[in-house]
């Protein structure tokens, strides 16, 4: 690496003579990509060609123990109380996601400025928790959530 002559060349000349290592890498990578696509598609194609097929109007119908299915799958209703918990989870997750790196280097000296930045960040995220608190997320009552 050290005895390789350093050419002070312009951009155009660099483009004309690309790094052979890069080209080899790209070649290998494209082979990997191609093999990946073939690996994914080959079973599907082979299945189409090699498997016997059954053709009738009922082959794709919904299985309901042999009965004819009625109604829509979307007609069933279910409570969505848990989505609030999902949102709260995201708040805490973002908290942890950014506090971990800071905690990792805190001893190495982030100073007062770093501490204040962290405090502002936590305060902003804490507002989301206060908002959810106000909305009654911590109360597990259907009425409290449905009458909002």
């Amino acid at each position: 690496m050290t005895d390789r002559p350093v050419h002070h060349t312009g951009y155009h000349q660099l483009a004309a003579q690309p790094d052979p290592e890069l080209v080899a890498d790209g070649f290998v990578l494209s082979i990997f990509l191609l093999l990946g696509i073939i690996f994914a598609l080959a079973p599907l194609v082979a299945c189409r060609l090699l498997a016997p097929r059954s053709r009738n109007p009922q082959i794709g119908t919904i299985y309901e123990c042999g009965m004819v299915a009625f109604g829509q799958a979307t007609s069933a209703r279910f409570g969505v109380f848990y989505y609030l918990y999902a949102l709260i989870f995201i708040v805490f997750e973002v908290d942890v996601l950014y506090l971990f790196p800071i905690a990792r280097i805190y001893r190495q000296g982030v100073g007062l400025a770093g501490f204040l930045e962290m405090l502002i960040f936590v305060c902003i995220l804490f507002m989301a928790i206060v908002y959810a608190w106000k909305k009654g997320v911590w109360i597990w009552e259907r009425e409290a959530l449905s009458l909002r």
Partner: protein
Amino acid sequence: MGTGSTLPPVVHFGCLEQIFNLARANSLWPLTFGLACCAIEMMSAAGPRFDLDRFGAGVFRATPRQADVMIVAGTVTAKMAPTVVRLYNQMPAPKWVIAMGNCAISGGPFKLDFNYNVIEGVERLIPVDVHVPGCPPRPEALVEAFLKLEEKLTSDRRFPHPPEIPRRS
């Protein structure tokens, strides 16, 4: 190869087909589907004493999408007929049918003049590969039906024939 509405594969390799058939013959998955008293014998055949699993056929599937074999175990009535046909149609391509018991073969003891709604054999509705006579057939007879189906697939019997039963004259 299955029967009925099954179309053959687009590309056909003889040797590969033999390997596939060997695999299919040793993993015949029946549909969990019983109509009448023969189903009790079918359950018994799947149980530990007779153990259909020895022949790879004990994996009773709860959906026709995963099943290879439909065991019609019992009387097929006119009310049940569309359901049987629909279940058969919902099964994927290489599929076989075992008609178990006299009812599934010909209507059996229930085919009387006043029993207007008994179908005289499931073969009137869907193609049948193996018939198992008996009222009801013993579990060994169902095991033998699976062996016959394997024989039909691979044209080779892997398991020995059962010994002759000495009969009194």
